[in-house]
């Protein structure tokens, strides 16, 4: 079940903690290459923006892509979605559970880490969310 079970303890400091998915959230889990200049979370090369800010912080600043053909569109839309659906459903816990998950930058690689086998550098076939 946990492909990455081995070596988790020593590894977890260096893993990208960017949130992936839209409804079924996970962590990126790939090897970190930098840290976000704003929230400080470790980010992998794929998720490191030229501005030095992680994708979630960029989206929070309103820099999310408006074009759904853009691979980053769903991620840019996610926080807005949880805000508006929480409002429509009058379910504050719905948004706060998202917010806590997204800001809780600890425990990288849990649930649905894209890194899969952490020892592997084979990063092909990822859908960037």
């Amino acid at each position, binding site marked *: 079940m946990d492909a990455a079970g081995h070596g988790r303890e020593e590894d977890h400091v260096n893993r990208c903690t960017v949130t992936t998915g839209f*409804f*079924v959230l996970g962590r990126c889990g790939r090897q970190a290459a930098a840290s976000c200049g704003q929230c400080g979370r470790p980010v992998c090369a794929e998720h490191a923006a030229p501005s030095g800010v992680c994708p979630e912080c960029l989206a929070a600043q309103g820099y999310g892509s408006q074009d759904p*053909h853009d691979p980053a569109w769903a991620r840019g839309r996610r926080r807005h979605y949880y805000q508006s659906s929480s409002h429509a*459903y*009058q*379910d504050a816990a719905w948004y706060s559970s998202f917010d806590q998950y997204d800001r809780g930058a600890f425990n990288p690689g849990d649930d*649905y880490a894209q890194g899969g086998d952490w020892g592997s550098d084979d990063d092909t076939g990822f*859908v960037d*969310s």
Partner: protein
Amino acid sequence: MFWRKQKAAIQRFHPLHRALTLEKGFTVSLRRDDWEPVIQSLARHTTEIRRRKWRLDERVPGALVPMLRILASDMPPDGVLSVAADMRGAELPEKKGPEVEMPVRPPVLGMHQWYALDPWLRMRAELRDGSVLELAVTDRVRFRRRRQRGSSGKVKIKTKRKTVQLVQVTRRFAKDAAVRRPGTPPPASVRVQVKQGGRLVVRASGKFREPLVDRAIDRILQVSTEPFRWTPPGTAARRTT
């Protein structure tokens, strides 16, 4: 001879993009990452195609592409995402229900009414927590065609349409998934049905009047919220395999 450049461009499109352009629809099942070239091909459409006949229906960038992006982001690489898209419209004879004669008063000479059922988007996605999501967007269109004598004495025929959009989202959870009923009910516009069993199934449905294309994605997401509230972020049901 005519439209040579655009015809050549269409030949270079991804086959599913070509089908959306020429046949206004397709039905296909692909693995998650095989959708990316389809989306990238669709992204080129407006810069390469001018001819009205070959324009993409606005529901393609408005609902289909966004939902492909969202569902793919929740899927494992080997997950299958199936799509049946039909952008041909509600006017097709095969979508038309029986005509009914309606009572009229002068100056109206006669009126017929019928309904058309237009299921224009169906998707099925195998998500990474082992659950399976199915969504269907169906327009139910009421047509009223009436004959009326105008002031000049000429008989005019007018057809009016009124649309109700039905959005249905069904999530079939993995066996033994950690699921709990949300603490609050959904908004009145969303109806929930639950099927207990080896695998719990939660179905949410919404009905929307006078659908606006630019709101379709919001409506799909609004209805989709309910089945996902059963596994809030961070407590998501893990894969059991």
